[in-house]
């Protein structure tokens, strides 16, 4: 149950290049901004799109290649859609039994297996409901049961928690992780939320503008993001520049001193918004990183207040509501931002 995919899909708007191997039981997260090629990747793997070059092989069987295109229904690839796409004319039970019926399993057997899957996903009591009588979370569980009940060799999930509210998404996320852990084949999860990626996946592939820009464990990717998109997802400031003895100079001329004194060459630097302090006059003392800028927005962020500062780079700063009141900040205020060098992580770009 392993996936070996390296292919190119050309679209008028963008080209997606994917190089992806995954082993049995592995859960791979695909993250990236809209238009990065996440959906294109899933659709190509499912055979809903033809590849322009390269190959997709599952368990050593060639699914897509130069002269090969195994149609979707013969691939054994399950798909959980963002908007669940349960068949509106069928009950939850018949939706889940659909895959078995397609493979020629007798009706009664398909249905009893479907009932088991519904129970496993905690929606066994909703078997006779039509999709329009289900809540978003219930419908998505039925959709996951439907995909798993078809006994796929690979499972593709397109933003499975995106249509749910925060608490519904969290419950589904933890539940989904258990089922993906129990699933013997490769799972690939496209996600927009850092939590999905952190909670569910073994490995994250970061896509940007159709290319893979980073591969790593969730911890690695979260600690050392290489795109603004991921940095924003995990809530970090990210800048890129040229490092010399640990000091990184940005194209804008701004310099940031990091804790990594050895680093030289193209580099990224990250620091948490909570480690940045703001002053309304130039701070005295010896902070190494001091930047002057203007506040462009102030908004609540959890228990804190997130202040966006436009300096020679855009900075995200989290301060307490008390600090906000004391500083009297509002959009347009002139501020100085400081961050200790020890709070700045730098790594090669």
């Amino acid at each position, binding site marked *: 149950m392993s996936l070996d995919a390296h292919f190119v899909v050309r679209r008028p708007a963008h080209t997606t290049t994917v190089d992806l191997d995954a082993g049995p039981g592995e859960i791979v997260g695909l993250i990236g901004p809209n238009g990065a090629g996440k959906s294109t990747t899933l659709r190509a793997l499912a055979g*809903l799109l033809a590849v322009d070059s390269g190959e997709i092989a599952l368990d050593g069987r060639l699914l897509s290649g130069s002269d090969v295109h195994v149609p979707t*229904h013969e691939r*054994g690839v399950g798909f959980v859609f963002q908007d669940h796409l349960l*068949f509106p*004319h069928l009950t939850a039970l018949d939706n889940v039994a*659909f895959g078995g019926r*397609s493979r020629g399993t007798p009706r009664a057997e398909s249905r009893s297996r479907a009932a088991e899957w519904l129970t496993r996903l905690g929606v066994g009591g909703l078997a006779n409901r039509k999709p*329009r009588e289900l809540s978003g979370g219930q419908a998505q569980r039925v959709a996951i049961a439907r995909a798993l009940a*078809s006994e796929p060799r690979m499972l*593709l999930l397109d933003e499975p928690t995106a249509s749910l509210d925060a608490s519904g998404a969290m419950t589904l996320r933890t539940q989904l992780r258990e089922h993906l852990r129990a699933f013997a084949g490769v799972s690939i999860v496209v996600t927009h939320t850092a939590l999905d990626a952190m909670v569910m996946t073994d490995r994250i592939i970061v896509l940007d503008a159709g290319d893979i820009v980073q591969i790593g464990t969730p911890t690695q990717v979260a600690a050392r993001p290489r795109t603004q998109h991921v940095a924003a997802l995990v809530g970090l400031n990210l800048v890129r520049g040229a490092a010399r003895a640990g000091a990184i100079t940005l194209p804008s001329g701004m310099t940031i001193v990091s804790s990594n004194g050895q680093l030289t060459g193209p580099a990224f630097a990250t620091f948490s918004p909570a480690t940045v302090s703001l002053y309304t006059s130039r701070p005295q003392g010896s902070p190494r990183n001091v930047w002057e800028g203007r506040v462009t927005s102030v908004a609540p962020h959890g228990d804190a207040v997130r202040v966006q500062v436009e300096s020679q780079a855009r900075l995200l700063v989290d301060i307490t509501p008390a600090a906000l009141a004391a500083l009297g900040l509002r959009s347009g205020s002139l501020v100085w931002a400081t961050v200790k060098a020890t709070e700045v992580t730098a790594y090669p770009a």
Partner: protein
Amino acid sequence: MSSSAVRTRGRAPLGLTLPAATALAFLVIPVAAVLIRAPWGTLVDDLSAPEARDALRLSLVTTVTSTVVCVAFGIPLAWLLARTSFRGRSLVRAMVTLPLVLPPVVGGVALLLAFGRNGILGKPLDDAFGISLPFTTAAVVMAQVFVALPFLVISVEGAFRASGERYDEAAATLGASRWSTFRRVTLPLAFPGVVAGAVLCWARALGEFGATITFAGNFPGTTRTMPTQVYLALQDDPDSAIALSLVLIVVSVVVLALLRERWLSGLST
């Protein structure tokens, strides 16, 4: 216009309401005239007269047959137009729509040239099997199919497009072949559209006159359908003609009501 709209935007100008009222009157008055002049007292007798009865029976048999034919062949054509891409698809769609705008009498002429005794298909058919189609009940059905098929194809194609290809994709990821997907997903989802299309198609077949009289003629009992009977009876038995017209009006109103119901329930599900 609601009263609040009147208050906020002022009354509709006379320059618009007057022509609008005239247009409406022009559409309503003729139908009202049929109702006013209808021989209510002798209606049952008029309709059960042998000629009227034959026409009613023939119309019922032929229109049901032609609707079944349209459904059987039109749904696959609608599917091809909605779900596949091939060279010349827009040309195919144009040809499907052509009978909608073609004068029916021209359709009759075209059918004669194709399936008539000396037609491009009719002659070999006659020579090889001795089958002659014109001026038979089969010809009535063919004329009706020719004019009514576009109604079915267009409304079913619209229903296929409206239900979207994504459910088909979901079915494919569950291992359903295209045929199985069509049967279990595409067609059930488009069912309201199929019903609407079939009703429209049947209504059009029922009213068919020009192509029928040209290609199938006017033989009592075999090719004289209701519209033809109305036209002929108007000369010497106007009461019978009006009675039959009344039946056709009632059928039209019922069709309209059915479609509206269908359309509304289709929206609410």
